[in-house]
């Protein structure tokens, strides 16, 4: 699946010239043309998928393998002291191309990047609420030995009342 106006698709199909670091049948890795740091590399599947949730498992695996090998190479090749792997998944996350890709960023002390962030304080209640909400979804992840500590959730679709009821029971248990 490709799209006409997608720059990454064009690169993958050989319609644009870039510094290709690696490619195989399904994946391509090239130097970013607007690098955040020296040696900034983009790893992307040649086929067009927009967000990670759409990328087939085997293809995602190949991208991860390529990303890992290439980022390891930067230690020796560029004297990197560290590496970041970064995915912007979705517009609110800062995704700029509609084509799924991974950023590989070689890092050195005192370079121009800083991924430190402001830590948010959250209350126990807020955290627990989020924990429950997420667990309702992760139940569906295959290969899970999901430990349902409080209740076995039989019904996938829930009314809001039921969710509140669960929360109340959870807190009662902890308090009591």
């Amino acid at each position: 699946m490709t799209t006409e106006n997608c720059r990454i698709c064009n690169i993958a199909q050989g319609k644009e010239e870039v510094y290709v670091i690696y490619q195989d049948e399904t994946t391509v890795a090239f130097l970013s043309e607007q690098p955040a740091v020296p040696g900034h590399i983009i790893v992307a599947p040649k086929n067009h998928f927009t967000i990670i949730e759409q990328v087939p498992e085997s293809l995602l695996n190949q991208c991860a393998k390529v990303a890992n090998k290439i980022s390891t190479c930067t230690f020796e090749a560029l004297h990197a002291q560290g590496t970041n792997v970064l995915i912007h998944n979705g517009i609110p996350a800062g995704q700029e191309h509609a084509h799924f890709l991974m950023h590989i960023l070689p890092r050195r002390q005192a370079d121009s990047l800083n991924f430190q962030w402001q830590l948010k304080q959250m209350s126990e209640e807020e955290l627990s609420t989020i924990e429950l909400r997420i667990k309702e979804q992760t139940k569906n992840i295959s290969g899970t030995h999901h430990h349902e500590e409080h209740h076995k959730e039989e019904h996938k679709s829930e009314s809001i009342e039921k969710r509140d009821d669960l929360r109340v029971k959870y807190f009662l248990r902890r308090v009591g």
Partner: protein
Amino acid sequence: MSGGHDHGHGEHEDHGHGSHDHAEGAHDAHDSHGAPDLKNMTPEQIRALQKQNCIFCHIIAGRVAAKKVYEDEHVVAILDINPLNPGHILLLPREHYQIMPQIPEDMLNHLMSKAKALSHSVLRALQVKGTNIFIANGAAAGQRAPHFMVHIIPRAEGDNITTFKLPKSKIGEEDTETIFHHLKTKVNKAFGIKEEIVTGKEGKEKAHHHTEEEKHDKHHKKHSPQTHEEKHEVHKEHSPHKEIEHPDQEKEEADLDKITSLFTPHAKEEKKGVSLDKIANLFK
């Protein structure tokens, strides 16, 4: 399960957790002061010590409280209690790896696969439309905890988080060439690819779909290592391209110095010349 969270985990080093007994196996590997004697420890003992001091290993083992949102036989996912955004998940391998290069391929595949699934879970559970997936290998990359983790961070429109916005700088063509050459040499080695690396404008190439013919050629190339002579023969045929076959050591070093200096373009240069104080002191 304890109710209080009196210590931060996530990206914090945990110092206030309390004393740990040293691992059983490390008892004989202490020096006279009772401190762990790393020089004389076996790899197994060192690994055991790492695990002993790693708060995430304790969380994984269930000895320290955490909000687990997913687990299976290989990985555990917990909520960061000091999140960048609500729902910030730390996905950890059960095994104590420190950085990505140490992780076996199958395990990394599993981690990426679950990162994808957790991203999906978070999109649904929190009704957001974006996630950042982030890995930091090494302190220089912002790694704070010694246990490898994948961050899955929910992002909402207007959440005012600029952490992952990447700046766009320009690196000159010559420097880019140097970077490209060094990187591609190493990457080719890592993937077992034997091909000459061209420099100059011809370094930029078009990616291509592999045709059946090319596949056959590549296979052939991989399995018939060329002699030095043969390589030169091939060079002659492609003479219009400038090629660096075996960069000499000095150039290599100079190249690497240049590359590393690119990381800190605003770093002040070493002060040259004589200090004025030194001159003044001569008059005393």
